[in-house]
């Protein structure tokens, strides 16, 4: 009896030990630009809620492009099943452009889902949103067309004539958005005044230059400032929106948190948490359902909201029109 009991205990211990150290079914590397934020959390939460057995390997570029270089080789060494890339800079460093499909310096084998990429087609990462043109790549798209942002400004300020934009040449998406808005200027009958942020010796934009750039836009007689697309400006939205407020200029940001947490007046955007969940759904299709990433079109966000910071509107003495108030989410 004693030996049977010992065997039983040994069996139970062995089972527990195996369970305790058992590797997860899937390894997913999450490469972020500025830490794990809402989209990153949304992605993880989705897969966990769907009971997908995933081990997340977190890698953060900490806003430095050079930091990204080693992540791909590490992912190959760890034999991850999927990579989630966050942002244009990270995604373009990991995947390269569509012409890099045979370039071993970029990932052309490990399934990859990109998210929070302002213009994946314009950047050249994928062929189109319907078909990425890359067998191992799919992603999410969370931006509204730029025309929607301009129409929103026109609805808010019918007398709007001149738009101000600050852009960062260090970020391809920032330049692309500036050019996209410039193209719209003619057809939508407004004037674009854009200011490029000067770069320092390391090729990085200077935070101190944001305030003066806003003042220059004010001097140029702009009616509204549009943040465009820039991780740098998003990170320093507090400085940008504060300077705008001081100059009596309203800001439309494509990032909802700039309205909720900073002094941007209005945004038309999707929640990053929802975008992350959408990326999670794409990952689930690849990992669990066995769908080839290249067969999946880029998933488009379908939940957008107009968010208005009423405190900012009051400070600027420019309350929103009734039509926008009827649909907008009001904060502060």
């Amino acid at each position, binding site marked *: 009896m004693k030996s049977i009991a010992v065997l039983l205990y040994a069996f139970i211990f062995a089972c527990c030990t195996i369970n305790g150290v058992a590797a997860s079914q899937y390894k997913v590397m999450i490469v972020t630009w500025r830490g794990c934020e809402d989209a990153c959390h949304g992605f993880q939460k989705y897969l966990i809620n769907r009971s997908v057995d995933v081990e997340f390997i977190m890698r953060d570029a900490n806003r430095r492009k050079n930091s990204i270089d080693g992540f791909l080789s590490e992912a190959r060494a760890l034999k991850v099943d999927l990579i989630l890339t966050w942002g244009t800079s990270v995604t373009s460093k990991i995947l390269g452009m569509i012409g890099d499909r045979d370039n071993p310096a970029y990932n052309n084998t490990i399934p990859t889902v990109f998210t929070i990429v302002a213009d994946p087609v314009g950047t050249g990462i994928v062929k189109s949103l319907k078909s990425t043109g890359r067998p191992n790549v799919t992603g999410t798209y969370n931006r*509204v*067309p730029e025309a929607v942002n301009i129409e929103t400004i026109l*609805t808010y300020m019918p007398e709007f004539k001149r738009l101000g934009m600050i852009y960062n040449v260090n970020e391809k998406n920032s330049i692309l958005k500036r050019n996209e808005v410039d193209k719209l200027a003619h057809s939508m009958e407004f004037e674009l005044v854009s200011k490029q942020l000067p770069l320092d010796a390391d090729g990085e934009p200077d935070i101190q230059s944001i305030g003066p750039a806003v003042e220059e836009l004010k001097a140029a007689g702009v009616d509204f400032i549009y943040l465009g697309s820039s991780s740098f400006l998003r990170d320093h939205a507090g400085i940008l929106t504060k300077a705008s407020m001081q100059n009596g200029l309203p800001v439309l940001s494509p990032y909802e948190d700039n309205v909720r947490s900073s002094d941007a007046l209005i945004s038309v955007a*999707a929640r990053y948490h929802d975008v992350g969940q959408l990326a999670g759904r794409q990952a689930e299709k690849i990992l669990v359902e066995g769908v080839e990433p290249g067969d999946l079109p880029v998933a488009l966000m379908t939940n*957008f*909201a107009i968010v208005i910071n009423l405190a900012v509107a009051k400070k600027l003495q420019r309350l929103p029109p009734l039509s*926008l108030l009827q*649909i907008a989410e009001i904060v502060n």
Partner: protein
Amino acid sequence: MALLRRIWIATILVNLVVLIIFVGLSALQFGNINSGLVGDRLGVLAERTAAPFEAAAKIGLPLSTVRNAKALLERARQFDEEIINILVFDASGAVVHSTSVEAPARISAEAMVTRNAAQGEPWYKETKEGFLSSIDIVSSKGATAGGIMIVYPRGGSFTRVLAMTAELAFVAILTLALSTLAGYFLFRFALRPQLLQFESIEENITNFEKAAWRHAAGQGWDNSLHSKHDANMELYELLMHTEDNYDTIGKSLATERGSEK
């Protein structure tokens, strides 16, 4: 009294028919008015519900991408707890938002046909699924981005029509009862001279018939009979003429019976 009874019954029947027609027509009219009022109310609600979605469409957002759509629709639905469903559909008729968890994929074919016929104008229709009220949502470019449709139950309206019919019927029955009672006394007093005359004539005819038969049986005439008819000479003459005829016929009948014996 027989004449009064007949006139009274005839009047009751005429009143009854008139009241039935009145109640029926009133119920139909009420049904139409009620239906129109429900339509107007739902039309206003549809317009109010469509306003925020129109704001989204005006800036170029597809209706399906409005994040707080559910909250906007639920707020509208709370105006009337009876509302079955409020739908937002796109230009093709595909339902993109709904207050119901079991929303149809598309608006019904009947609704689609009515919508096409309305050519962008707000429309209202009573169908098997209920009252439908809809309004189109136009985008900034003037194209139709979709619309709002409210589905409202017909049951409540039907109940209201039934209640109104019952109320009208009750009033009609009460009116009939009162008019019947009033009519009886009205006829009785208003036609009193005529009724008395008629009764008198009736009585005289009866008495005359009795006298004629008595005379035919060999008994004498009751001359007091004639004096009762002084007030009506024409009738008297008629009676005299009739009396002669009876006399002649009576005698001939007596002769015939005597010869038979």
